[in-house]
């Protein structure tokens, strides 16, 4: 049975197209829309562009990787947030609820503390995120309970704050002139240093994790029901929960390792997507991914153009996210549609 694309999805795609054009054209080196399409089209068909080499450089080497990274990170956080909100049956859950961000943060500040290179820092952040979630999952499963979901979330909160204390300790011990600013900058999130070589380690995990979640999209509807109902409908909820948590953690850790901590995207975007297309995962996941990518692209464009210096992404998402979320709360008091 085929269905036509929903209006909500079209809205998301329009937002994406607009975000892309704005992100490429706006900045310290303004680029006309004509140049943008000329460069991209020439690259696609393999002929020389009539735009200036400087414009071509800015589009392909400077803004290109950053735009792709913003899209991937935004989409990854939104998809992971959507999956976790469904799995934990709680619309206030974000992708870092199981400690992925806290683990990544500790990994990254340790990397900076031991003066590792960029690759070392990103790898430690990625591994830290994965390890934190594995630890939360193992501890949460060992604590026998009739409500495994609740125990898992609470374990995540507890372990997350322990890791936060670890981050505090490393910052306290760090060299205040060289290392501490780097740590602070990392923890606030930024895509300013993104180059083409960062994209592959980001794309791999995000693609694998998202593919798993999209493959399971019909079952995720059922997984958002109470545990016993989902089992009575024929799902082996234990293994499925592990698969969903693993996939969401993979995409979250890979994005946090690239961009640093960017809060709010994984919390706010799933709500926006549900308001557009409803809670049905087969529609919700792609809409959420596109909206998340567009949202972070927009934020990142503001981050690099609004002020003479780069504004950290984490600060912008909070400034935009908080009033938006309060508005959402006021609008949707009756139901979390």
């Amino acid at each position, binding site marked *: 049975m085929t269905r036509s694309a929903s209006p909500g999805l079209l809205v998301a795609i329009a937002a994406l197209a607009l975000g892309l054009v704005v992100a490429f054209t706006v900045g310290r080196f303004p680029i006309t829309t004509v140049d943008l399409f000329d460069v991209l089209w020439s690259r696609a068909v393999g002929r020389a562009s009539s735009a200036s080499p400087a414009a071509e450089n800015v589009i392909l080497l400077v803004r290109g990787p950053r735009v792709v990274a913003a899209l991937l990170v935004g989409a990854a956080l939104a998809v992971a947030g959507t999956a976790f909100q469904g799995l934990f049956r709680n619309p206030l859950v974000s992708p870092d609820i199981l400690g992925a961000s806290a683990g990544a943060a500790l990994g990254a500040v340790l990397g900076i503390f031991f003066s590792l290179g960029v690759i070392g820092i990103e790898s430690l952040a990625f591994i830290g995120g994965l390890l934190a979630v594995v630890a939360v999952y193992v501890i949460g499963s060992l604590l026998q309970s009739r409500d495994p979901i609740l125990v898992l979330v609470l374990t995540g909160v507890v372990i997350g704050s322990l890791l936060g204390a670890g981050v505090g300790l490393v910052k306290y011990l760090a060299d205040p002139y060289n290392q501490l600013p780097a740590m602070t900058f990392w923890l606030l999130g930024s895509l300013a240093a993104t180059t083409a070589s960062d994209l592959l380690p980001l794309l791999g995990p995000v693609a694998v994790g998202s593919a798993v979640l999209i493959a399971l999209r*019909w079952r995720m509807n059922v997984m*958002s029901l109470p545990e016993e109902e989902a089992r*009575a*409908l*024929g799902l082996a909820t234990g293994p499925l929960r592990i698969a969903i948590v693993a996939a969401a953690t993979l995409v979250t850790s890979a994005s946090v390792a690239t961009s640093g901590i960017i809060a709010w995207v994984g919390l706010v975007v799933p709500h926006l997507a549900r308001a557009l297309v*409803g809670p049905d995962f*087969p529609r919700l996941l792609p809409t959420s991914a596109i909206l998340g990518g567009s949202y972070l692209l927009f934020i990142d464009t503001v981050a690099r153009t609004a002020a003479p210096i780069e504004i950290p992404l984490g600060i912008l998402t909070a400034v935009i996210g908080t009033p938006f979320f309060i508005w959402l709360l006021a609008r949707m008091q009756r139901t979390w*549609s």
Partner: protein
Amino acid sequence: MTLAGQNLTIGYSDRVVGRNLNVALQEGEVLALLGPNGGGKTTLLKTLMGLLRPLAGEALIDGRSLVVTSARERARRIAYVPQTHVATFAFTVESVVLMGRTAHGNLFTRPSTRDHVVVAGALDRFGIAHLKERPYTMISGGERQLVLLARALAQEPRFIVLDEPTASLDFGNQGKVMREIRALAASGHGVLFTTHDPNHALRAADRAYLLRDGECLAEGRVADILNREQLEALYRAPVEKLTDMTAGASAFLPG
């Protein structure tokens, strides 16, 4: 096909709820589970559905232990209608009923044309096809109960287990759910339901199973065991029996 519990000890790892329970349900038959709060009704229900492992004894579907039956196979034989609850997400009525088809696909398949046909049939049967685009959170309690019944039917099970299907429904909807339970049995399903109202058992069930403090007090045809003495023993409270002199039907009132 038979759904049965043999010498069941039921409960949780830290607490035994009931012992020496023997239950059997045939296709086409309605069994009502009656008893006071905390007597073990829900625990017995979950054990018979295979959602809870028995501490001793066996829960069997057609002679095969539910413990060794996969979730998917189980769901194609036994459907569960939980007490209506407030849903977290506003799925449409159609999406909710479509979830009943989960066990008929594999892990990754999208719903087939046949799945949509079965869902449409289930919605029609309960007269709620006009609600299919509505959010499940925005319909009345009675309608929600019908949606959950439609979802159970979409599973194409042999047995349907309902946990207090009439709780929180208005008088008219209670009657409607009773009639639907009779109709499910007439179409060959075995139906097991719990209730706090002996009159609902009298109306809709063939047999009743009286459970108090984890023990079976009595079991048999409703006409034989649902009388004043049994109910007073079951609830430890006075009970009055009313009889309609013309129709011969009777009902119980808590005294």
